[in-house]
């Protein structure tokens, strides 16, 4: 196997191992709840088993040997010698973490054990006293060639050997690979068999093998049959080469002679009216002859003997009419001639029958490198759909040159036929556009993955937190099949982890607190996902103590994150107050627990969600619990935008951040503490001029009304003042490269239908980018 193969194999093993570890984690949590559930124990065992077997085969030997120890423990559980206690589950879950680390280390066989590896093995030791002995058994050294030796082999296959898919002749052929063989076939069982069953094996062989290979190699030939067949192998002194060849030839002649005698006897029977018994004898004799010739090996004789058997079979089935006897006699004579002739083709048949291609590199090794991180698993049906669409597109494309040709040949003055061609072209265009739409939809659906991939890690997280904090928490999950873009799936995991950790750590009260407030002893966290229009909503709802809006406001002022006047000016409602927890540098607990609040705040969550063009909403009721809702665009590829004009330029605002678009009289705009604000339908919003934010020259506004887009962001809404709204557009946002990539004001560029490129404004960030200068 070359390097490229190994890379590819390791990359798929990584994917597989991820799935296995996830499944293992889930199964372990189930096992903790129901330690005697045989089905779950088997599921755990199977996952470990595959992890070990496939890991070792893909070159992750260290991982495999580690899992081997853990598997040993579960073997004891499976055999009911041990019970799955929470401590054991703890250690095994840690073992899963360790496997993840070992996976990251790759196939490198460094000898230094990881600290976690040592920890886990130490934790598992009590469960398996003899684990230390379980060190990998070294491979028994291959005994060196012992020089030329002769083996006397007696082989008597089980009558039913064919039913195990083994042809005894193949074993004899295999022996010819090792050296020179002489075989003596004993057909006595065959001739005595009554009734004869053609599906049974009746022959036995005495074989003399001369070889320079080790005895182990000779025994290995019979490794699969030694238990149910009679096999004896005896090593003898080396003979001289000449006598061995003579022996072999004379044995072959002896064996075949018996067959020809039996055939002659069979024909006599046939002639004397005992047709069926005669044919049966002939069948057996021909079969024996084939085996003998094959074992010699003698290709020509084997073919000739097979023709005899074919003739016998045809007659048995009654497909040959009269004149069979002379024909078969001729065939038998031909076989006898072939047997007597030297085996000219012996070499050809003695070499392996199947050409074995050398294991050389046929693919470039770099092909698989670097694809692991971005690979994606695709439902085969989706690929089929793509293939079909690609095919349709090719067909549709074929029509275009034909139109050009017709137009060239057409009399340009013939108005009617020009109209006809135009109509056909339009139909054809509609067809192409339908295919293009389908193609786009299919490609997008390939990027869509179920949110389960993220959700499945949380039961373990909640369990660990609950155990750590001695709380009683139940995690309910629903809507796992909701699909999201792969990029979202890849990024949303960490923010969600943080949110759930917060809910379990800060939201759910301690046992005592819950008891005191008369709540059910088991705290619940409900994680759910559902589709809402073109958005996907992920909700984390807990029944904990809830957020205190007034306390949050106070804390924000204390920490210098907001001023009291700003809070007053913003008419901060409860939801806005809850969003204070999303501000950088805010933490409701002074105590830093080992779980949350390790200097990483909810602002990181907000940034991650906003980077995905998502929005966070928070609802909470004191004493009843909180709900944190994340709204994300289901697909990142295509979205809608609003084209706007600003200072003679055209830019696009992503539609998903726009709450609404309004006209605001210029006269209502006020300036409070350096910030321009304006009331819109009863709510006061801070205002931002897009021209100013993008450093365009601001045109003088002669109009009395301002065009304002109310933009929703994680840190609150604001009004964005533009010159005109130009209309809605579907866009594919592409990231900016080079120098432009450093401009935080834009999320990317979009190509419009007319081929023009427009920049897409980062409305989410725009306001916070301005804040330092605006408040200065």
């Amino acid at each position: 196997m070359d390097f490229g193969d190994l890379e590819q194999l390791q990359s798929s093993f990584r994917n597989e191992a991820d799935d296995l570890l996830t499944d293992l984690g889930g199964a372990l949590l189930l096992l903790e709840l129901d330690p005697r559930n045989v089905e779950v124990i088997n599921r755990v065992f199977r996952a470990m088993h595959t992890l070990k077997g496939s890991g070792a085969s893909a070159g992750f030997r260290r991982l495999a040997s580690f899992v081997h120890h853990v598997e040993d423990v579960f073997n004891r559980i499976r055999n009911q010698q041990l019970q799955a206690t929470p401590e054991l589950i703890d250690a095994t879950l840690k073992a899963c973490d360790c496997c993840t680390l070992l996976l990251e280390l790759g196939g490198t066989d460094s000898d230094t054990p990881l600290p976690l590896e040592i920890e886990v093995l130490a934790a598992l030791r009590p469960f398996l006293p003899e684990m230390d002995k379980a060190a990998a058994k070294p491979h028994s050294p291959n005994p060196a060639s012992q020089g030329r030796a002769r083996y006397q082999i007696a082989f008597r296959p089980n009558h039913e050997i064919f039913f195990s898919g083994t042809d005894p002749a193949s074993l004899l052929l295999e022996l010819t690979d090792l050296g020179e063989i002489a075989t003596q076939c004993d057909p006595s069982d065959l001739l005595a068999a009554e009734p004869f069953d053609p599906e049974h094996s009746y022959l036995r062989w005495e074989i003399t093998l001369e070889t320079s290979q080790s005895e182990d190699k000779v025994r290995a030939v019979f490794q699969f049959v030694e238990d149910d067949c009679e096999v004896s192998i005896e090593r003898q002194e080396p003979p001289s080469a000449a006598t061995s060849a003579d022996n072999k030839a004379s044995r072959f002649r002896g064996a075949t002679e018996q067959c020809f005698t039996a055939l002659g006897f069979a024909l006599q029977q046939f002639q004397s009216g005992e047709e069926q018994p005669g044919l049966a004898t002939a069948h057996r004799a021909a079969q024996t002859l084939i085996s003998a010739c094959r074992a010699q090996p003698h290709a020509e004789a084997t073919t000739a003997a097979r023709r005899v058997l074919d003739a016998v079979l045809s007659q048995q089935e009654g497909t040959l009419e009269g004149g069979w006897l002379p024909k078969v006699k001729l065939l038998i004579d031909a076989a006898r001639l072939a047997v007597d002739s030297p085996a000219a083709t012996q070499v050809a048949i003695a070499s392996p029958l199947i050409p074995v291609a050398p294991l050389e590199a046929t693919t470039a090794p770099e092909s698989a490198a670097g694809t692991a991180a971005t690979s994606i698993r695709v439902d085969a049906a989706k690929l089929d759909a793509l293939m079909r669409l690609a095919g349709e597109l090719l067909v549709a494309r074929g029509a275009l040159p034909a139109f050009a040709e017709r137009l060239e040949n057409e009399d340009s003055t013939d108005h009617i036929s020009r109209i006809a061609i135009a109509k056909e072209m339009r139909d054809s265009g509609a067809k192409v556009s339908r295919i293009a739409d389908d193609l786009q939809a299919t490609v997008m659906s390939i990027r869509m993955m179920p949110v389960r991939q993220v959700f499945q890690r949380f039961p373990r997280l909640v369990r660990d937190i609950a155990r750590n904090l001695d709380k009683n928490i139940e995690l309910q999950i629903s809507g796992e099949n909701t699909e999201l873009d792969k990029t979202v799936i890849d990024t949303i995991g960490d923010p969600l982890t943080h949110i759930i950790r917060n809910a379990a750590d800060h939201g759910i009260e301690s046992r005592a607190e819950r008891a005191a407030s008369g709540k059910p002893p088991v705290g619940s966290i409900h994680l759910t996902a559902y589709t809402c229009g073109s958005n996907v909503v992920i909700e984390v709802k807990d029944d904990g103590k809830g957020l205190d809006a007034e306390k949050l406001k106070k804390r924000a002022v204390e920490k210098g994150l907001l001023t009291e006047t700003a809070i007053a000016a913003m008419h901060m409602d409860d939801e806005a107050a809850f969003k204070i927890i999303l501000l950088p540098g805010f933490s409701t607990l002074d105590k830093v627990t080992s779980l949350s609040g390790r200097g990483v705040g909810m602002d990181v969550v907000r940034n991650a969600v906003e980077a995905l063009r998502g929005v966070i909403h928070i609802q909470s009721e004191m004493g009843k619990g909180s709900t944190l809702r994340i709204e994300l665009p289901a697909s990142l590829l295509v979205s809608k935008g609003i084209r706007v004009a600003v200072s003679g330029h055209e830019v696009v605002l992503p539609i998903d951040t726009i709450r609404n678009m309004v006209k605001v009289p210029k006269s209502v705009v006020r300036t409070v503490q350096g910030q321009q604000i304006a009331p819109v339908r009863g709510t006061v919003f801070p205002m931002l001029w897009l021209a100013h934010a993008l450093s365009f020259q601001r045109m003088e506004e002669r109009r009395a009304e301002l065009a304002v887009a109310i933009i929703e962001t994680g840190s609150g809404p604001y009004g964005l003042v533009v010159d005109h709204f130009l209309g809605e557009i579907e866009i594919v946002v592409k990231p900016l490269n080079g120098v432009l990539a450093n401009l935080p004001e834009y999320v990317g560029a979009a190509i419009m239908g007319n081929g023009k490129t427009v920049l897409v404004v980062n409305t989410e960030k725009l306001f916070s980018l301005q804040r330092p200068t605006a408040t200065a």
Partner: protein
Amino acid sequence: MGKRVLAVDDSLTIRQLIKMTLSRAGYEVVEAEDGAKGLQKASTEIFDLVLSDINMPNMTGIEMLRSLRKLAPYKFTPIVLVTTESQPEKKQEGKAAGATGWIVKPFEPEQLLAVVTKVLRC
């Protein structure tokens, strides 16, 4: 056309390893991810050799082996068990169900090829 091999294993890695090794050597490899799917593939197409894991969801390798041997085209077909279960009783169970031989995981590609060549000799 090379001989056709059916590789039944719930581990993608093992299936891939089998496929890589055997396709290089000129065999045509078809994959199935558990015993039930293996049985289904085998009953709609003909294979010269079946390589199967033992411990799989839905239908174990041994159950599949028993069912395969009852199908006329697989009465005498070599069926090799690929497994980490190296215990003698598993081998016996496999043998009794009609297995031709076995390969113990982990294996080197050369070992796999040697066994396949061995059982497909005739």
